[in-house]
Each structure stands twice: as C-alpha cells, then as structure tokens.
C-alpha cells in the first residue's frame, strides 16, 4: 500500500541472514517468505508486510553497497554508510564468498562474456540461483583483471585490493592462477575433482613454481605466471629420461622401495620407465603453453590412472612418489653432474607429489 517506506539508521546495521538471502539471489518476496519460517512475527505483532518492508530496506541498502563492494577499499573509506569494521569485513567476505560447485565450473575457462552468458547452465547444474552465479563470476573476473598485471605476491595483491581474509585471498589466487594459465579442468575425467582439490594444487604451484616462490630470485614479474627460469631449468631435467640415467634411477628407486609391499615392488620395477618418462615429460612440457595447460589431465591420465589400476592406496602413491623424488637426487646426474638442478628438482617434484596425492581418488 505504500509507495515509499524507508528506514535509515545513522549506523548501518546489516542483518547477516538477510544479506545471505540477498547474496543467494532471492527476490525480496522470496527472502521474506524464507525468513518468516525462521522468525516468529507474532512476538512483534508484525505482519508479513512488515517483514517484507524490512527486507526491502535491506535489499535496497545492499544494492547501494554493491557498487562499493566492487572495490572494497572504497567501502572501507566511504562515509556514506557508517558501520563497524567487523560489519565491513563481513560484508566483503560474504560478497566475495562463493559456492565451490559453481566456481569449479569456471576453473580454467576464459573469463569472457560468453562464459557469463552460459552461466544459466552452471546455475542449473549447481542449483545456485543465476544471480548468485553471475556475482561469483563477476567477482572472479574482477579480481583477475585487477591483479593480472600487478607485480608481487598474488595473495598479497588480492588482499590489498579486495581486503579479503587470507584463506579467501588464497582461493582467489588459486582461481586466478588456474584461469591465467588456462589449466584445463573441465574434462570429464577430471569431473570427480572438487574445487578444493584444484585450489590446493594451484596453491602449491604458486608457492613453488611461480615468481613468488622462495627460490625465485627475480620478483619483477607477477606470480600469476610460472617462473620462467625455473621452467628453463626444468628442460635440463630431460636428461633424467635418458637411458643410463633412467636405469641408475631405477636401481636406486627399487632400493628405496625395499620395504614396500610386494605388488608395489613388482609394479614399480615393471613400470618405472613409463613413470619416470611421464614425470620428466610433464616437467618439460610446462615450458609450452599448449602442454602446460593440460597438466591436470596429464597428471590424471599418466600418473593417477596407472596407479589406480594397480589399486594403489593414496598413502602408497605418496610413498612411491617420495621415493622416486628422493632416489633421483642420488643419481649421478643430479648429485654430481648438475647439482644446481637439485633445487629445481625439489621444487618440481615436491609440488608434483603433493598434487598427485591431492588429486588421487580417495575411496
């Protein structure tokens, strides 16, 4: 009955429940109906219209805030909405929060307007309202655009520009990293992997393979990209796939595998060459965009699948991979010929092991 009915407080107070409903993309009516179930209106002699009016006030406020939320420092510095620091943090954190299911679908995709148009599929698939999907997509794209060209630590950049908490900033860093390197995650074979898995892997890659890794000397570039020096050095590791080196490595490996169960030992001695070649090829391939973007598929097809076929448990895979990594360090090549490659090997293999273990199907 009222055309206008607004309520404005000197202190902007946010009702987290209503905010959640708004973020989920509910309309005011839907939200009111939702809230009605949770809250007894009778206590306040209130009607559903009163609740709706309250929700509308909140929703309008969120719409105004949304502009500022797009660049959180603005929200922090603004004076229009006087609110507590915690409230601001909550607003930002929730606004940049996402559904892993939804974001899983964006991973590795080009964040173009075409993808945005296809969001309704994702929305249906993930059972998340389209509005919310759009927000998540836009957030990721915004973060991506903002930090793409920046120098320095990806996580720190995201934190300064979006005032996110560290865990959330890490997630965004992982998303940005995967998207920037266009790592393929959408293949059907990879569909069992959750967002967390990718985020974890990407996080390790950022720490160890990108420009922000401890080993990297030049920090001029952004750690959205892989450390080029590291990649170049990785090319030298190719030697590891050469015959003599391979054999030496195999011996060392088998020695290290003494305590392993029988079926593993047998499998290893048979398949060591394939395993080693695969690992070295992946390393070599990281230099080329075309191949590097398939890293997750390669890891799955060439390492994880063979392991699963032999019914390795996750722990066993870890043991094998660690043994492989460690024994390589004792080879003539790494130990004496090119000791400078030891760190490179550590950087590469440590991350690779972790990724494989992380991606390894857990049944």
């Amino acid at each position, binding site marked *: *009955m*009222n*055309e*206008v*009915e*607004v*309520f*404005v*407080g*000197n*202190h*902007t*107070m946010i*009702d987290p429940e209503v905010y959640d409903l708004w973020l989920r993309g509910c309309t005011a009516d839907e939200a009111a109906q939702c809230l009605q179930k949770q809250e007894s209106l009778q*206590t*306040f*002699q*209130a009607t559903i219209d*009163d*609740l709706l*009016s*309250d929700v*509308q*006030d909140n929703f*309008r*406020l969120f*719409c*105004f805030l949304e502009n500022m939320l797009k660049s959180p420092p*603005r929200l922090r*510095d*603004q*004076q*229009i*909405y*006087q*609110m*507590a*620091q915690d409230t601001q943090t909550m607003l930002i954190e929730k606004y940049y929060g996402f559904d892993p299911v939804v974001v899983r679908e964006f991973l590795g995709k080009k964040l173009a307007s075409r993808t945005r148009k296809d969001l309704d599929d994702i929305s249906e698939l993930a059972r998340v309202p389209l509005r919310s999907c759009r927000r998540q997509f836009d957030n990721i794209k915004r973060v991506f655009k903002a930090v793409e060209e920046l120098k320095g630590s990806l996580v720190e950049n995201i934190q300064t520009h979006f005032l996110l908490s560290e865990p959330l900033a890490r997630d965004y860093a992982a998303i940005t990293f995967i998207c920037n390197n266009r790592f393929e995650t959408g293949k059907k074979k990879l569909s069992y992997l959750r967002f967390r898995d990718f985020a974890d892997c990407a996080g390790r890659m950022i720490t160890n393979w990108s420009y922000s890794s401890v080993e990297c000397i030049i920090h001029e570039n952004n750690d959205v990209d892989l450390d080029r020096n590291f990649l170049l050095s990785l090319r030298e590791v190719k030697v590891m796939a050469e015959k003599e080196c391979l054999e030496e490595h195999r011996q060392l490996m088998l020695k290290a595998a003494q305590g392993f169960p029988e079926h593993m030992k047998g499998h290893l001695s048979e398949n060591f060459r394939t395993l080693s070649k695969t690992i070295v090829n992946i390393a070599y391939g990281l230099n080329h965009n075309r191949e590097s973007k398939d890293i997750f598929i390669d890891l799955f097809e060439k390492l994880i699948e063979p392991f699963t076929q032999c019914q390795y448990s996750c722990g066993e895979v870890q043991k094998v991979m660690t043994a492989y990594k460690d024994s390589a360090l004792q080879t003539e090549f790494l130990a004496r010929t090119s000791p400078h490659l030891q760190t490179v090997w550590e950087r590469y293999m440590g991350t690779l092991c972790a990724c494989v273990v992380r991606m390894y199907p857990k049944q």
Partner: protein
Amino acid sequence: MPGRLKVKLLAARDLPVMDRASDSTDAFVEVRFDGGMCKTDVCKKSLNPQWNSEWFMFEVDDEVLQDEPLDIRVLDYDTYSAHDAIGKVYIDLTPLLINDLPYAISGWFPIYDTMHGIRGELSVYVKLELFNDFNKFRQSSCGIQFFCTAAVPSGYRLQGVQGFVEELVVNDDPEYQLIDKIRTSRASNEARQRLFSKLSGGLQRKVGVKVMEMGGNAVLGYTQNFDLEGESGIVVRAIGTAVQICKIRLGHLTPMGSSPGAPKETHSLTNTSHSHSNHHHHHHHNHRRHSQSRRRHSHQQHHHHHHNNHDSTTSPPLSPVKSYGSSPPPSAPAVFSGSPSRFVFGSYEDKGHLNRGHLGGQSVGQGQGHGQGDEADNEYEDGDNAFSCSSPRVDEESGMAGSPSLVPSHRHSVSPVRTTGAAGDKSGSNRRLSDSDMGSPQGGNSLEDNGSGFNLSNSGSRHTPPRSNLNQQNFNLLEYPFFTMRSFPAGFIVSLGSMVSARSVKLLDKIHNPEEPETRDMWWNEIRTEIRSHARSMNCHAVLGYIEQTTICDEIIILSASGTAARIQCDLDQCLQGTQPPPTQIPTGPVAPSLEHQHSIDHGKEKKLTVDIGLANQLAQMRMNASANAEGSEEPAHKCSVCHIPYRANSLPFPVNLTNCAMCKRKKVPDVLFTTIDPPKDVPIVSHGALIQARVCRPKGKGKGSETSAREVSDSLPFLEYEVHTQLLYKLKLRGLNALFGLKIQICLGENMIAALATGTAVFLGPMPAPPSPKLSTQVQLATQAESRDLAELQARITGVVQHHRQRLNTQRAAVIDMTNGDSNSLNAASDDSDEDQSDAETFINNKDTFVLEIDDPKDEILALVLRDSTPPDGFEVCNTQLPPGIPPSRIASHAQMFTQMAQIRYLPNINTKLEFADIFDMLLRRICFKLRRLAPCCLTDLNFHMEIPDEDEVQIAVTGCCLTLGEPQTQNTALLTLPSTAPSSKRASPRPPGTGQEEMMFNMEVEADKEPSSSASVTRTQPPSFNVPGLRQSKIYERRKGQPKMPQRLQGVELTPLPAVIGGKIVKYLGNYNFFLIRESTSVKECGGLAGFMQCFIGEMMAIVRGHVSALGGNALVGYQMSHCVLFSNLHKNQAQCLINVCGDAVQANYDNEPVSADPLLTADIS
C-alpha cells in the same frame, strides 16, 4: 571583527568518472567566498586527485562569515566546452566564530550534487584569523553560541534568562522566479540551496545581534523553519531563548559565579562594549551613543512600529486582541484570526466543552508588567544589581503598581536591527528583516542593556556579568515570556498550568514591498499574544516548550503555536541551589473572570445511549505519599508542587476536576495535565511512559476560491482539535494515566484533506488522582437485544484494554500501593449491578472521579479507534520525551541507533475506507519496532513525527527518533511477586524515584487480555500465575537473542542523536550548531531503485553529509538533531522526483568512558 579566511584544498577521493573515454576525471576546484573566487590546478586523469593547493585567502568581515557559507565546487576540466560540475561542498563558517575553539575546520566533506547525490569526498582545511577589532556596533553576533538543544547544554549552567528571541526574513523562492523556466534543475536547486544557506546564516546572525543586545551569550532551543510559500516566496523563521550560560568549572561551586565561572561571557560582552565603528555601522553607533538620553523618548519615536500591546494599559482590557482580531491590517488580505480556532488545551471536563482562552487576564498581566518594570527600573537606579526580590513581594507590588506612568518601551534596543534592514544589508540576500520586536526590547533586557551601557561609560569593560537577568518583575515585563526549551533545570518550574495553543488561518499573497512587509511578523505577533493571554488566564507567567509551526497549501497558511503555561522560579539562584521555592503566591488581581464555552458540542440531543466508563473498578485515589512520611526524616525525592494548579480553585480557566494533591494533601491538582515539555526531573512519575497519538483526518472541499476555502478550513479547525483532544483524553484514561508530556500537535493542510497528528508521552503523576477504571452503564433504553450485547462486548473490551495497559505500564503498582493504604474512595466494586443502575448516570456525571465517555452507539468511531490502539511489542518502550519516563538512567545501556523513517502513503479521506488514517501510524510504529527487533530490549525515545500532504491522495510521514538499548531489568518475576508482600510499607508508600531497584518492572507482564471485569487490583492478587506466562515468552526472546553476537557498547563514528546528551559519554565541547537544507532531485528514479530507493539513498546521504561536517569540526556527535522539513515530490510518469530535507543539531565533542581522551584532531592534524 574582520578576519582572514584561509582555505587549502588537499585532495579528493572516489570521484565519479566524468570522461568515459579515458575512464577518468580531470578535476579541479573553485572556492568562492563573498564575491571572491580561487581555483586549484587541474589534476589530470585521476579519481583521487591530490592538489595540495596553496592557501587561498579571503579578507572578510565577520558579518559575512556568519551570513555566507564557503562555496566549494569540484569540476571536471574540459578544454573545449564548459567544465562539468561534479558537485559542491558548502561549509558553514559560523562555528569558526565561537570563541575559545580552534579556528579551523578540516576534514573530508562529501561532495554533493543535487542531481546525483554524493560523488566522492573532498579534503579541505579552513582556517580563520580574526583581528582583534572589537566593535560594539557591528552587525555580527559572533560569540553568541547557538544551541538547537532544547535544554541547558550539558556542562553549562544557566546564569540568566533574557527571554524569547525571534526573527524572520522573507525572500523570493528561486524555484518560482522567471529565470527558473530556462535554467536546469541543477542550477535551480543549487540556487535554492545557496539561498537557503545564506538566509539561514543571516537569520542566525540577526538573532545573535538581538541576543547580544539583550545581554545574553547564548540561544537555547534554537529552531529555524522554512516556510516555502510558493509564489509568494520563502519565509525563514527562527525562534529561540536568549540566555546567559557559563561553563561549569571544577571547583567552582557558587551558583552565581560572578567572576571566576564566567570568563566567557565576560569576553563576549567585552566585545559588545568596545566600540570601534566602521563606516557600515556608523549610524548605529551614533544611535547607541545617545541611547541613554533617548531612552525615554524612544517610545514615541518608534511607536508606529508597534503592533503589540504597549498601549494596553491605557486602552480597555481587550484592546490588544481587538486591534488585530477585528481590523485586519491592510496587508493581510483576509484574516480569519477572529475564527474560533483558539484553544486552551487543558484538562477538559470529559463532556467536551471547548473553551476559548479568555482574554481578560491579559490586560491585567500587562498592567502588572509595566508596573514591575517601573519598579525594576527604580531598583536598578538604586544600584542594586541583584534583582533578587522574592516573588511574593513582586506579586504584591505589581498588583498595586499597575500605573501607566512609565511605559518602559525601550525601543532603542531593537533599532539597530531595524536599521540594518533599512540601511540595506550588505549581503543583499535578504530583502527585509523582521522588525518585530518581541521579547528583546523590554523588561529585563532593557535593564540588561542599561546595565551594560552604564558600565561602558564608567569602566569601559565589565567583568561582572549581571547576576540574574531574569527575576520576577523583569520577567513579567517580557513581551513574550516564552521558552523554547523542553527541559529545564531542577526547581525551575514551580507549577504547570496546561498546554496552550493558538492557530490562525491566513491567505498568502505576494509580499510586495519586502522592506516594509509587516504581515508575517504581525501574524506571528497575534498568535504569540494569544498564547500569552491563554497562559495568563491560567495565572501563569511563562510558556514553556514553546514551538511554532505552519502548514501551507496553495494560498492558505495555518500558523500554529503551542506551549505549556507554567509558573517558573525566576530567581535562578534559588532554583540552582535546589531549595524549595517560596510558595508562589497566587495574585489577588482579577483572574479569569469570564469563561467562554464556545464549542460545547452538545451530544445530548442525538444521544442514544451513554457508555459510562468508570467507577465500577474505581481505584482508590492514590496515596503515594503518606504526608507524614513526606514531612518526616526522609528527604522528599520528588516535589509534588509542580503538579499543583497555578490558577485558583474558585476561578478555573477551564472546566477541570480538582482534587487534593495525593502527596501533600494540601494543594489542589487537576485530574489531567497536558504539557508540551519533557517531564521535569523532580516530578514524581510512578509509571512507565506510553506513546499516545491522536490522528484525525477530515476531507476538505477543493476547487473553491481561496477565501471560501480558507473560511472552511478555519471553521473546521475547532472540530479537528476537539477530536484530537478527545482521542488523547480517551487514550490517556484507558491507559490509566493522568498526564501527557511532550505533546506536539501538527495540523497539516492538503488539497482535499486536513489532518491533525498529536503525539505525546503519557505517564502517571503521583500527586494527581488515578483515572477511574472504566465500567459500562447504560443510560438510555436499549433498543434491541443486539445492542445490549454489543454494549456488553464493548464493556468487556474496554476493561480488557484497560487491564492490559495498566499492567504494561506499571500503573498496577500504584494501584497496589493504593490498596494497601486502604483509603477513602471506596472501591465501587459493584461491577455487575451498575449495568442496571441507570439512575447512577446522573451522579456519575457530577462525580468528580467519573470518566464519562459519551457515544452515540456501541460502534462509536473514536472509541473503536482508541480501543484498537496498538501497544509496542515486548521489550520495547516507546515515548517521545527525550528520556523514557519511569526507567532509571542506569538501565540505559547505550545509544544504539538514530533512525529516520519516511513513508509516503496513498490515502484518500472517505474513499479509502479500508485504510483508517490511524492505521498508518500504527503501522509505522509497528515497523519501527520490528526493524529494531535485534536491539530489544530497548527504548525508542524522542520520536518525532512530521507529516506532509504534498498531493491530493498522498500522505507523507517522516519519523525520527533514537533507540536506546536497555540493560536487563532486575529479575522481574521475583520482583513482581514479592512486591506486594515483602516490600516494607513505608517504602511502598514513599514517592520513590521510579525504578530505584527491584520495583522496576520494565516488561510488565502481559496478562492475557482479561475479559472479565474484575478490578485491576485483584488481578495482582488473585492471578499470580499469569505473570509467568509472559515471563516465559520473554526468556525465549532472550535466548534467541543470545545466539546473536553481542552488540558492542558503543559504535564507532559520528553519533547523531535528537537527545541533548550523549549516552554513555560526556560532552566536552560544543562546537557549533549546524543547519542543513538539502535538495535532491532525480530524473532517473527507476534506475536508482524507485522512489523508495531514491529516498533511502538521500536520507543516507544527508546523514553522511551531517557526519562529515561534524567530524571536520573535530566533533564526534551531533546532539539535538532535528528534522524539521522533509517532503518528497514525485512524478513517476516522468521518472522524476525531488526531495527537500532540513535538519539541524549541535556538533559536539564527546568523551566516552571507555575511551582515552582523544587529542583534538585539529591540533594534531599535520597540514602544511
């Protein structure tokens, strides 16, 4: 005092993108002041430009500083075409002129554009260097501090009261100028805002000048109102109370504080007294120099300026009224002031006699006044500076000395003001000045002037401020003894009369000659005179809580004024020491001889049956205080004298039931008291407060000529007021309460309706009798079975409602106490038989304790409305006084929120039968509570309703208020249950300050509306289990709440509050008052979220601007916040909307207990 204004522009942030191509902005800033203009460099391609400009200097006169705001524009540089405006910042410079503050303003100001709202922020640093050029005759009034706060500001002490000050200026409204047809909306809005700001500054300055001449150093309860009269222009009115205050210093305890406590006003007065004439003021200088000698002659010289009652002593008693009532001045086209729209709102007899304030007392008052003036003058010449004669003597003497021999019309004191206007204001913005001379020229003021002049010639400077500017005889001389404050120091109020109000309907016309337009002044003079006469008829010499309001529709304007007639303690010495004032003697002069019962609306003829509410459950009259106890050792916590009638029992100004005071048993008290002020601190309140509203809307014919229409309005006003009054009274009685505080009645005129809204806080005053509980009885034959059944139902409902309210508001306690005293008024327990007892009706009517509701049938509208009245939900207290009555301050935990609610509602009187007018307000209140549900238990205080009817079928209501969270009440259930049995009887009987502990029953249990008509007292006794029910419900709410994160005690940032103080903190410094008039327009309403989005955004922005200005002054709170204007015009077909908001308040720096004393940001700011 000329000065040098220095402005430095540091930076801006968050600017909008003005150049789409580069996604950036090339911003620069123009600073204008007093005709001068400076620019910064252009900061290319940045949304966060840093200019760090040099100091821009403006050499200015302080007069201009007061009148004009600093005008800063942020623009986007454009090489080829005109620069695009980004927005503006207006900075009011008056706070810089207040002494003893750092002369600087610095901070981030929101950049505001009337079309786009806030567009970024600008960092500005403003400094003022004043030269020590004291000029007594200057036009400026720096040094006078203005307070919107309607109370003595905290940390200050009242030293003297100079009296009522007012001023008004008239101007063309830029919106209605010819040029407006060709300029953009933005230009037009900006022209308006600038003009409003200028007018407001100028007005304040002029008020300040008046105050200075009166010898005051501050204005309290200062309010400005903008009357947008449309074609005929803008009228800006200001009223306030000129006072002398000084800061309370530690270790300084003498109440009068002659020298040590008052260096401040000494200073300001020194300013006044040193003369250093500059050419502008030469004229006045001369004038003043001869003032001593001209004093006696000035009366004649200026006589033609008087439209007031100076000659009233010589003319017949009724002459002042007659002079305007019967012969309208030529400039007023049609004056309906003779219309019967004048009332004394008092404790009417329930039968609804409306009486007109009789006018006889006025002349007497005048006579006294002059006589006292005479005496006072003599006293002065004796060199007695103290004026401390006690009131009895004054009264006595004034009674005799009513001779017209010396009419002390010290006109000289106003004349500088007038001359300013005549000499042509330098600013040129004001077409004219108010030449009304209320208050200022007379009595105490002129004496005050006299004093300063005298001292000037002798010593050149004064170090001893006048001790008490206000004493009885001076005070009686004040032309308008009005006080715009709402709360007063303890002991100030001797006795409360009743609410007085006056209205008149006028026709607007173009003010043809702005230099001599006496119309508006005269209109207000009439109103004020009437108010005064009403007060005098009640034998009251003062009007407290005085406000003036207008409502305009087309060419009709209704002017209203209201206040509370009271007798006050004029000698501040006494009231500050808190000693018992000498019993105010009731003068023996002729008082209130004639009573006109103008509108005794006779229901008798149409009456079918009478519902007699009352008696059956009559509670014994409350004996709060066994008089023995009061006189005994226990210090009386409260004074009952405030409630005693100021008039004489044998000549009542209006019909009222008198009883002996329940506390002292000696004096008479009325049965009902309506006032416009906050409850005095020392008045014994024994209940919680309850917000009571009367809402009336009547259709009004349209399309008639202005005159016909005006007459119609004028004729319907009395009926409207009668209905308002009836509603208030019914609601009050149904709640079992007997006094109404903070009553504000707003009449609003629309195209096709006229509405009235009265809001007040009802309480139970201990000394006054408890209203009887309602009980039905029929007087006439019941026609049908159905009718009698209806009647019975109604009876049950009424009883239920009464029970409900009583329990909620804690009046139960009073009843219990009463019962234990087991006194006099026997319970009329015969609840059942009174139904048949028809003959009783006669007796009831004559019985003073009867509450008779006369209705035509059981479906009586008013009664139905009253019964439907909603109550706030559990955990909420709602009132419109500044602090919740009946709740100890210690329970108030924090100031959680200040809110503004604005609603526009489609409403057509008569047509829209589904929506009752009253429902609108119930809905608004309900929603406010609902929206603040997370803060419960809390208390909504200082609720202020502002209604507008901008369109035919549109009612707009803006509500402001603040929400105070309350601490947990003491374990309620046990407290309640133990109360009747364990509390020692002396304790119960004594008038304790409400809520000193366990008796507190904040959430008084909602007993399931008790249908059976049992006495409320018996409810307490016989139904203890029912208390548990709500208790459980309560705890459930608390549990739910505990799940939520606990709110921090104090929120960060700038606090805005309508209250005069900062909850949980202490005001360290008053930094100046601010008055903002903002206009916001949009041509893309849909895009910004519809009208609601537009309004929500604008209100938010308005608050942000206010906060920005407060913090730039180094403040962290704005107290006395008021929204006096809020109107929205919209045309959704054109996607357009425009909104005007006017807010004001006092910027303060407050320290909170839990925070270290913050260093002054202005001192620490490291700039340049």
